């Protein structure tokens, strides 16, 4: 019988612990498919964050390291500098990457550290039960912004791709979503491009996934995707924010 669909080799058989309707599963799969297609599983070292994806080390079949909260880019830096031939990636959430780990993120990018960062932005802290994240939208209700995020006291959300694309060390930055087939396909292309950026030795790459958290947002999975489209995407526009590849540079020519 012809096989028409199977699990990527770079994913283990472990059942994930993610909530129903969470997009982590899709994103894991996209990364694993790219590891398979680029033949990178054997040379890959992934770094798991603290947050919902903390146990990503159980789900990817490549070698994995679990990092202290926010420090994944520093851990990845250590791995990549020690083993330049390894394909090194981090998988981080918004609290991990844009709050406690801001310094590690920004400086890894500024150094042009030749690693891939996969950033899952769902505008809320999932693992600890729905607190305000650095990317929580103005007015958005969370456990720790119960009256809606008041920018006068809690400040404004951080647009990570825009921020990092100002740095010379960032080679590739793209914001994607996995809310529909078209976006999932575009997201996969972005993941592959990020790995290719590393393989080409061009420096730091980041793919930001605008994601949903039905559990902590208090929606059904499909309602959550509607809310994502209506509220997240206007604040966090999808698109390529930086691409230093020859091809992209060529396209930029008039």
């Amino acid at each position, binding site marked *: 019988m012809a096989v028409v669909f199977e699990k990527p080799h770079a994913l*283990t058989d472990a059942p994930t612990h993610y909530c129903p309707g969470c997009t982590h599963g899709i994103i894991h799969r996209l990364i694993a498919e790219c590891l398979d297609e680029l033949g990178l*599983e*054997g*040379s*890959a*070292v992934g*770094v798991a964050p603290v947050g919902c994806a*903390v*146990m990503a*080390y*159980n789900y*990817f*079949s*490549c*070698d*994995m*390291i*679990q*990092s*202290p909260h926010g*420090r994944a880019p*520093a*851990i*990845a*830096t*250590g*791995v*990549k*500098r*020690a*083993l330049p*031939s*390894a*394909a090194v990636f981090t998988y981080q959430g918004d609290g991990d990457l844009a709050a406690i780990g801001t*310094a*590690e993120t*920004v*400086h890894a990018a500024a150094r042009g550290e030749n690693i891939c960062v996969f950033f899952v932005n769902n505008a809320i802290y999932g693992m600890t039960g729905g607190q305000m994240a650095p990317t929580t939208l103005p007015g958005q209700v969370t456990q720790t912004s119960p009256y809606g995020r008041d920018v006068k006291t809690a400040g404004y959300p951080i647009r990570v791709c825009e921020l990092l694309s100002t740095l010379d060390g960032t080679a590739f930055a793209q914001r994607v979503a996995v809310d529909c087939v078209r976006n999932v396909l575009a997201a996969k292309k972005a993941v592959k491009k990020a790995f290719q950026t590393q393989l080409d030795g061009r420096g730091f790459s980041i793919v930001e996934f605008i994601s949903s958290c039905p559990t902590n947002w208090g929606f059904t999975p499909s309602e959550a995707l509607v809310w994502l489209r209506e509220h997240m995407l206007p604040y966090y526009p999808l698109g390529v924010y930086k691409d230093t590849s020859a091809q992209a540079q060529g396209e930029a020519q008039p």
Partner: protein
Amino acid sequence: MNMAQRVLMKGNEALAQAAIDAGCRCFFGYPITPQTELAAYMAKQMPKVGGVYLQAESEIAAINMVQGAAAAGVRAMTSSSSPGISLKTEGISYMCGSDLPALIVNVQRGGPGLGGIQPSQADYWQATKAPGHGDLHILVFTPSSVQEMVDLVGKAFDLADKYRMPAMILADGLLGQMMEPVEIGGKEVPVPAAKPWAACGHRNQREHNIVNSLYLTASELEDLVKKRFERYREIEAKEPLCEAYLVDDADIVVAAYGAAARIAKAAVRTARERGIRAGLLRPVTVWPFPKKDFQAAARHASRFLCVEMNMGQMVDDVRLAVECSKPVGFFGTTGGVIPTPAQVLEQIENLSGGAR
């Protein structure tokens, strides 16, 4: 193979060269007085041996880069001074929890807070009791000369690899800044033991390795910590190091480590000249603490005097080691003040009650 040469070197620089000689090829740091020469030496020398020198954005990032390199299976180190070590404690705890070997150098200065920049031993408790959160220990070596800054580095790396845990060289500003003649080099760069647990890419040859410190099932974590503590007990039995100077017949035993031990040694020597049976026990490891050496000395000594460049930290371990069988006095200077041999001698003379 180069012959070992006797050269004049600063402690910080000698330690750095010794680390390179021990096969360390990854250094991640952040400038802080009085350890900066170590980082500067690495910045200059690492590129010449194909190694990595990286100035991180913070001590936190530096220790995590060490963790990444250590997880990838290479010899990696960082160095800092007291305030910077406080920032590294998070990473040290994770490395203990992930069973990762690495070297951390603390060239201590006065604290707390920003404190001062003069030599101090005020981080003894931090190094030996709580170098990070959780049930853990790290190996702690306390050199007392520039030569020992060299000699203990290879040992620290080897034992860290053997027992899969971080090791610390607990030095101070005096040892870091002073120059002394050292014999350095002249040995083959060792090939560190294989690390089959490392996350370095499985090449499709084995199951994936996971370097991790998270265990959500309490009993699983307990089992793991207990197993780690069996290793700690083995280390406590096998690895303590201590120098005994004129201790065999000593009535008054001075306990001191690192820079303070040098000063104490001068005082002990003068005390002997004055007919006082004084001796010096100098721990070279403070975790594991050389309890047996102190217990042996307690059989004939009438009292102990602990001399430290702090308000009294190791003195607790001395009291525990002798199980309070003999009085243990304390003399210390703090804040970066270095005690003088005359001050220590006065303490010894007071304890001897003028008995000659």
